[in-house]
């Protein structure tokens, strides 16, 4: 098949996907203008697009974005440090691991964010509540993946370390940890994604913070186009974050 045909084949599906989206928006626009859809429930897509600029300038979106980012960063650092440490501890103390690993797995499936009213009482309506919730939600995957990665270290590598008479600490830092790093990073990535979801979600729910709070505020003000624009912006940020961490994971995997 010719090179041109191959290029076309590669780009046709994304083009069709994007094209369908544009087409759907155009149909919605048409239906609203015709009055088939109530414009007080669904704003005109064109208005939403137009309000992007307004939202960015008026609503101080940079500041809000940084606030959300800072909350994500804080909870991200916490869940990485504690998650890897606890995971390493579980790996080292086999009895502890056997006792608690299923509990951690259960915690991973527990809807921790539902306890946000409790956290509100404990930490007040502040960034601390948000960070704590995001930290605890993202913790289980890091712990589980750390355990998994350390346990999966190839037997032969451990034996190499023993043949060089490495101390347990050296064994951990020079052999186990590097070998486990790709899997650990998968866990950190999962934890970060959970953290982001919870940060924005809780910001919305408790009406405090950056981007999540913006959506809540715009909803209460009934500024529909701006609200839809803000939602799109949050989706955009979330997608960029997701893709970035995916690329980083792939890069780490190939380099390691």
């Amino acid at each position, binding site marked *: 098949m010719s090179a041109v045909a191959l290029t076309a084949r590669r780009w046709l599906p994304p083009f*069709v996907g994007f094209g369908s989206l544009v087409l759907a928006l155009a149909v919605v626009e048409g239906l609203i203008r015709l009055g088939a859809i109530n414009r007080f429930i669904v704003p005109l897509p064109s208005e939403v697009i137009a309000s992007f600029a307004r939202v960015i300038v008026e609503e101080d979106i940079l500041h809000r974005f940084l606030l959300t980012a800072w909350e994500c960063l804080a909870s991200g650092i916490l869940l990485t440090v504690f998650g890897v440490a606890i995971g390493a501890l579980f790996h080292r103390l086999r009895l502890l691991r056997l006792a608690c690993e299923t509990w951690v797995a259960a915690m991973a499936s527990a809807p921790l964010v*539902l306890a946000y009213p409790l956290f509100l*009482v404990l930490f007040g309506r502040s960034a601390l509540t948000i960070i704590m919730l995001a930290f605890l939600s993202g913790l289980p995957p890091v712990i589980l993946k750390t355990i998994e990665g350390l346990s999966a270290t190839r037997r032969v590598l451990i034996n190499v370390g023993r043949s060089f008479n490495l101390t347990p600490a050296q064994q951990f830092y020079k052999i186990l940890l590097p070998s486990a790093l790709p899997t650990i990073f998968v866990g950190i990535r999962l934890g970060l994604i959970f953290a982001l979801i919870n940060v924005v979600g809780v910001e919305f729910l408790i009406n405090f913070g950056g981007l999540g709070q913006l959506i809540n505020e715009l909803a209460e003000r009934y500024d529909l186009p701006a609200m839809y624009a803000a*939602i799109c912006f949050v989706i955009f940020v979330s*997608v960029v974050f*997701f893709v970035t961490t995916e690329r980083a994971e792939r890069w780490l995997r190939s380099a390691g």
Partner: protein
Amino acid sequence: MAEIGRLTRAVAPRPWMMPVMLLRVVIVLAVLLIWQFLSASGWFYRGVVPSLPTIAGALAKLLSGGDLYWNLWVTIDEIAIGLAIGGLSGLVAGLVIGGNKFIAAAFEPYLYYLGPTPKIIFFPVMIMWFGVGAGSKIAMGAVSCFFPIALNVAAGMRQIDQVLIRVGTSFRANPWQMATKIYLPAMRPAVINGLRLGLGVALIGTLLAETKLSNRGIGAMVMQAYAAFDMPRMYAILIVLFALAIGVNALVARFGGLDAIERK
């Protein structure tokens, strides 16, 4: 003779004394003790960390009262309908995407990248479209669970061992037979996994929506306790909620896992 008797007696294990079980009991007891200590210490603002007997009392009161079960029924109802709507549409979407490479290349990225976003931010939109009643909560649940189910079904379809499809073709199975006797059984583990994840996020989505805007359901109960600063009651409700959530998750995993036959 006496030795043989001694030997057989020593071999029988006692599960409640096994080290793992012991450690778990110790950890749980330690946590409870620390809690009680913190509660009695007065370091925290009054009532934020209630004593264990207070919580136990509130739990008993909650379980014996009528309004827990009524609200629970409301929530379960909302989750079930949301899961049905999101699950069915997710199943169809997953089948379409999994079955056709072009459609998958065109549309699956949207599902894949939209999946890990905080769906609760769509709630104001749901309220506008479906009202302030159960409709918006059901919609939240449906939107939440659509993505993991669709993605898992699509992945499940793609990872069907191709040779099994060739077997069906070589025996001239018609499309209906191919679908029911080969595709669906082969996809079963993936579908169950998708349902498990979907149930988890539908639960979260519906409950969060209830906490934000509702006067019925478990989420609303939590917010009412919060508003009244009835901390023991809030703890009690949360305990019941978490126990149910974890329990249901374990049930679905076990129910699905029992029948899933893995190849060696």
